């Protein structure tokens, strides 16, 4: 059993650990240590990290179904916001570093290239989750409505995986592994729900 207190106490450590890669990469970028095409590398790393952390959010949600890991739920919001932070930096990279605010071009890119369409849609759909992440919002919306909104995370992750899948040129193993994880976690939840309901009916 992991106590809630222990988890809460370690929140700052978790935050710093999760943010650390971004500091390192931005530092390497500024000092010229990200190879000869640093914009591409920085953008790829930030995007990949965002997707991985989003997956981590799902994994934590699922693990917390086990009573002894229930306290992990205390980390979920924090980790979700860090995922958004990486996604925001990833998008900033694309808009600023890659296309230097050429919005006419970017708009065309979003419409013409499915992988960018999906990626952009994923970002947009993550916004309501970010804006409703405060305790106040949960109260205001009621937990039931809030929970429904936050099921959007599945769609966001699937869009992210699809974005990654489409932009990958040859070896699609990594996005497929991510998809496998999402599907497994999804069925785990469904299974639990049905199982629990049956128990309740008895």
């Amino acid at each position: 059993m992991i106590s809630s207190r222990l988890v809460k106490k370690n929140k700052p450590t978790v935050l710093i650990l999760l943010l650390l890669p971004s500091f390192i990469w931005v530092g390497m970028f500024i000092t010229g240590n990200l190879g000869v095409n640093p914009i591409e590398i920085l953008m790829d790393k930030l995007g990949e990290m965002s997707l991985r952390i989003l997956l981590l959010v799902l994994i934590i949600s699922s693990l917390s179904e086990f009573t002894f890991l229930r306290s992990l739920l205390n980390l979920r919001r924090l980790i979700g916001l860090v995922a958004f932070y990486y996604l925001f930096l990833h998008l900033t990279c694309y808009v600023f570093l890659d296309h230097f605010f050429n919005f006419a071009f970017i708009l065309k890119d979003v419409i013409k290239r499915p992988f960018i369409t999906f990626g952009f849609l994923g970002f947009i759909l993550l916004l309501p989750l970010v804006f409703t992440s405060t305790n106040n919002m949960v109260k205001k919306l009621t937990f039931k409505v809030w929970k429904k909104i936050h099921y959007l995370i599945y769609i966001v992750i699937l869009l992210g995986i699809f974005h990654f899948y489409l932009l990958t040129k040859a070896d699609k193993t990594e996005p497929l592994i991510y998809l496998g994880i999402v599907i497994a976690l999804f069925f785990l939840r469904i299974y639990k729900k049905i199982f629990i309901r049956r128990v309740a009916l008895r």
Partner: protein
Amino acid sequence: MKKIFSSEITPYSSYINRRKFIQSTSALSIASSLPFALHASHKESSTQFQDQLDEGEELNSFQEITTYNNFYEFGMGKSDPSEKSSKFKSKPWSINIEGLVDKPFTLNLEDLLSKVTIEDRVYRLRCVEAWSMVIPWQGFPLSKLIEIASPLDTAKFIQFKTTYRPEEMPGQKRNILPWPYVEGLRMDEAMHPLTLLSTGLYGHDLLNQNGAPLRLVVPWKYGFKSIKSIESIRFVDRQPDATWSMVAPSEYGFYSNVNNSVHHPRWTQATERRIGEFLRRTTLMYNGYEEEVSHLYKGMDLNKFY
């Protein structure tokens, strides 16, 4: 929004190991002082490359050209080819001349090089992934090899094949692509004076990551057409297979000329990032070689024959 010209931007590139020609040539002199003999007479004068540079262009550095590569035979990451190609043995090397020729034969690379004159060619290289470089190649026109091979009149295309050595090329151990890599050209494209068989760059023998010991360079086509580490050259009478267009025919055609009007689902072909620069450049039709090559495709529907 106010348009900003690249000249107005302070070199943002201070974040990058920015190339200066002086630095490049120092890399060159280090490279050429290495104790192994060069295949051919790769000259090394600092001005000869610059004479060939188009206005507003700089050479990419030796380091840029040799550490940022797409060569899936050594792995899919850009740095894999430079990091994982040390086992590859490019000497001795021979090339099989096959198909529609008087008599198929095997050509020892040393013999071949004794029959040709090595020239300097500064070309832009435009990758389909929307990045580009300017590279000072050494090599000889493919047409010279075709002369030596003396193909039959019925030969209309050439197919090139990269060597298949999974023990030396770790990327070939996985079926990322159907190995060996193959590419092709139409005979008139192959005979074009710009089409180069390269043996070196910056006055140095080609490194393994750049396609040692012999590679194709077709500057008006996307980089993947410029097949590396060529082991066989086959003359054929119909359009041969080319690896990427077999793998994803809707994305990569046989011709794969640099052409913004042919849409690609992943990368814009309207602009490109010149390695080492911050702002993107506009991609030129046929990568800026329109004057020299557009006659090859006169009357062809370029959206159909992409």
